[in-house]
């Protein structure tokens, strides 16, 4: 009798011991946490246009955006090398969900002030949210010197506005897709037939080829037919190459313009006719305010 009892006890004790380690791990099981999708895109731009990404809190980005002339302009223009549109842009993350930017592009010597707000963040776990949604808006000011003296030169007629919703989902670590409904308002248009408001719907995405390289595409379909007929939908194809401190984006596009108010309604090149431009973006990140964990240094 005693032996049996002892055996039972010994057995029970052993079971308890072996279960203990897993049991200890179970102690650490937290309430389900919410996991937010990160790095849906490598850069704040998919290619030419905006992605849902914005600079992290306390971080400043310097974007150098560059579109050469059309490749089919031939040897005389050295395949577009002679004509380039560039834009410099600084943006700063006030919080992780709010950033402001200031840009200057060669086209119409336009300055632009911009704002990006993350409205929703894709998450899984305790809280499920299928999409990340950001709002992007900018106001552009054409600062060309007055050349047309046939009409009064109002300051307001130099302004243009961009309002976009960026709706993205990171389907997997490899694939992210984004929808971009846009409303662009121009205070002054070229002809009487043109409407001041242009609506468009864009689709963009990236497929990661390796951890540091991805293939990207971006297309904007103009819903309004009010723009003059010589303009095309903007299509860009490119790769993102990440090299430590910066992201290098190399692409082909039919758009000369870099600001949304130019490349969405005023794309004058056609892929089918070979009006393709080579372009690149360089994004450099600077940490201005360190996270609180590092504030003491």
């Amino acid at each position: 009798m005693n032996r049996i009892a002892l055996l039972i006890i010994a057995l029970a004790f052993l079971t308890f011991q072996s279960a203990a380690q897993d049991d200890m791990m179970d102690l650490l099981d937290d309430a389900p946490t919410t996991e937010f999708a990160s790095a849906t895109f490598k850069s704040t731009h998919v290619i030419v246009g905006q992605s849902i990404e914005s600079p992290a809190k306390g971080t400043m980005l310097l974007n150098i955006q560059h579109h050469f002339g059309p490749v089919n302009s031939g040897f005389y223009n050295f395949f577009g090398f002679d004509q380039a549109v560039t834009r410099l842009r600084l943006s700063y993350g006030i919080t992780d969900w709010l950033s402001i930017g200031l840009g200057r592009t060669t086209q119409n010597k336009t300055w632009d002030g911009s704002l990006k707000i993350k409205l929703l963040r894709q998450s899984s776990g305790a809280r499920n949210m299928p999409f990340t949604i950001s709002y992007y808006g900018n106001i552009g000011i054409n600062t060309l010197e007055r050349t047309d003296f046939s009409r009064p030169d109002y300051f307001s007629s130099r302004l243009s506005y961009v309002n976009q919703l960026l709706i993205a989902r990171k389907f997997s670590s490899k694939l992210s897709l984004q929808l971009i409904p846009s409303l662009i308002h121009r205070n002054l248009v070229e002809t009487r037939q043109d409407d001041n408001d242009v609506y468009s719907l864009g689709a963009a995405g990236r497929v990661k080829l390796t951890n540091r390289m991805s293939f990207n595409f971006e297309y904007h379909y103009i819903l309004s037919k009010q723009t003059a007929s010589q303009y095309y939908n903007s299509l860009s194809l490119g790769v993102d190459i990440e090299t430590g401190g910066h992201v290098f984006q190399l692409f082909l596009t039919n758009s000369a313009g870099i600001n949304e108010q130019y490349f969405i309604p005023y794309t004058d090149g056609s892929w089918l006719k070979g009006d393709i431009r080579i372009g690149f973006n360089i994004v450099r990140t600077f940490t201005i305010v360190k996270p609180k964990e590092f504030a003491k240094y």
Partner: protein
Amino acid sequence: MKLITLTTVLFLFAFQAEAQRYITKTGRITFFSDGPLEKIEAVNNGVNSALDSQSGMFVFKVLMKSFVFEKALMQEHFNENYVESDKYPLATFKGKVKNIKDIDFTKPGIYDAEVEGDLTIHGKTNHVATTGTFTIEGSDVLGKSLFTIKLADYNIKIPSIVEGKIAEEILITTTIDLKPLKK
């Protein structure tokens, strides 16, 4: 009668073991690597850990995405390219304090500890051994340890373009503020 006594003893044992568990959810792990190109430093203040003062069993659970870096871009690269946090969200340690009997949890003081066990990072498990200290202060236990790991041991690849510029060994500091587990 003997059976009853023994069962009682066993229950007491079980109860005792339960009562001598310590736990934290706010442990701190930092890591540091000093390469010629980049000095990399990160902090995680939400480390889960538990210690059984009876058996010496000692476990850690670390959410990789909770590491905060000085530069946001580094944090993104850490999660995206190096430890692949989407695929391997957790790092765990399951091990033992080998000299648990030498530590008197009722007597304040600093005790040396030898810790050994399985460390899993990036889906790869290695047997590791290190030394540290436990500081007993009232009912609390403060565990501290410092050790290095090699990135290659955990299949964490350094891309060729930055090879030789980023250190291949990482210095890890753990500071855990264990408190008695209340039932």
